[in-house]
């Protein structure tokens, strides 16, 4: 099977490195002729995925990002070598619960990623997590 064109990034866990990923996402989105709206949604989801990988994985090594270009979609994999997590244990955040309460104000990343992308999947173990997210290309994107 022919390998799909793939852009690979290796990000050190340093402040604001997620913006490097968004710059690459912009170039890939333009190459695929995705709409500006889709491109912005991809960047926003990618920021949240990188922050999760940086902050929550407790990973001490780099985070790897693969942009896999297909005719009708863009698949992005965000891979860390952290301690893993159980997605089923992540609460869906509600602002009504967070306002005027002691509940932690953060915890929006996963919800934003799911809302902004067409599909999201996880593979997680105690040796790392791979988040796979897909944005479909519409005919009218071109």
């Amino acid at each position, binding site marked *: 099977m022919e390998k799909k064109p793939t852009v690979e990034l290796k990000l050190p866990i340093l402040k*604001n490195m997620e913006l490097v990923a968004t710059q690459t996402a912009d170039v890939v989105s333009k190459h695929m002729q995705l709409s500006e709206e889709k491109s912005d949604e991809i960047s926003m989801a990618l920021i*949240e995925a990188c922050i999760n990988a940086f902050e929550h994985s407790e990973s001490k090594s780099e985070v790897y990002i693969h942009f896999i270009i297909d005719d009708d979609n863009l698949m992005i994999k965000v891979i860390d070598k952290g301690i893993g997590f159980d997605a089923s244990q992540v609460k869906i955040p509600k602002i009504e619960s967070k306002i005027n309460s002691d509940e932690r104000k953060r915890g929006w990343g996963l919800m*934003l990623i799911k809302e902004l992308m067409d599909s999201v999947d996880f593979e997680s173990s105690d040796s790392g997590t791979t988040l796979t997210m897909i944005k479909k290309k519409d005919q009218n994107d071109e």
Partner: protein
Amino acid sequence: MNKILEASLKGEVLVIKTEGYLNKDLGQDIQDAAQEHIANGINHVLIDLEQSNIVNSIGASIIIELIEQLQETDGTLAFCNLAPIIEKTFKIMGLTKYCSCYSNENDAIEAMS
């Protein structure tokens, strides 16, 4: 560069203009800029994000703390000049249930005064 460009009173509204990535640091800078004025009795705050077209949820979460604080004094928080993706992000998070969004600073100040 992520920074506060201006924090000034326009009538009874504190207008905070930002530049760059609304992340944890800039979110905290906004919070800090608002504190001095809130201590002096100002309870209407407008955040102008015209020069900030990218945000993360940590920066946005700090804004939730500012909403809470303003609610204690019957105050209001509003945004203007939002990039579409930032407005969409704030909607998904539910921030727009507690803050109004205006297309420009003049409209916002008129509505908030």
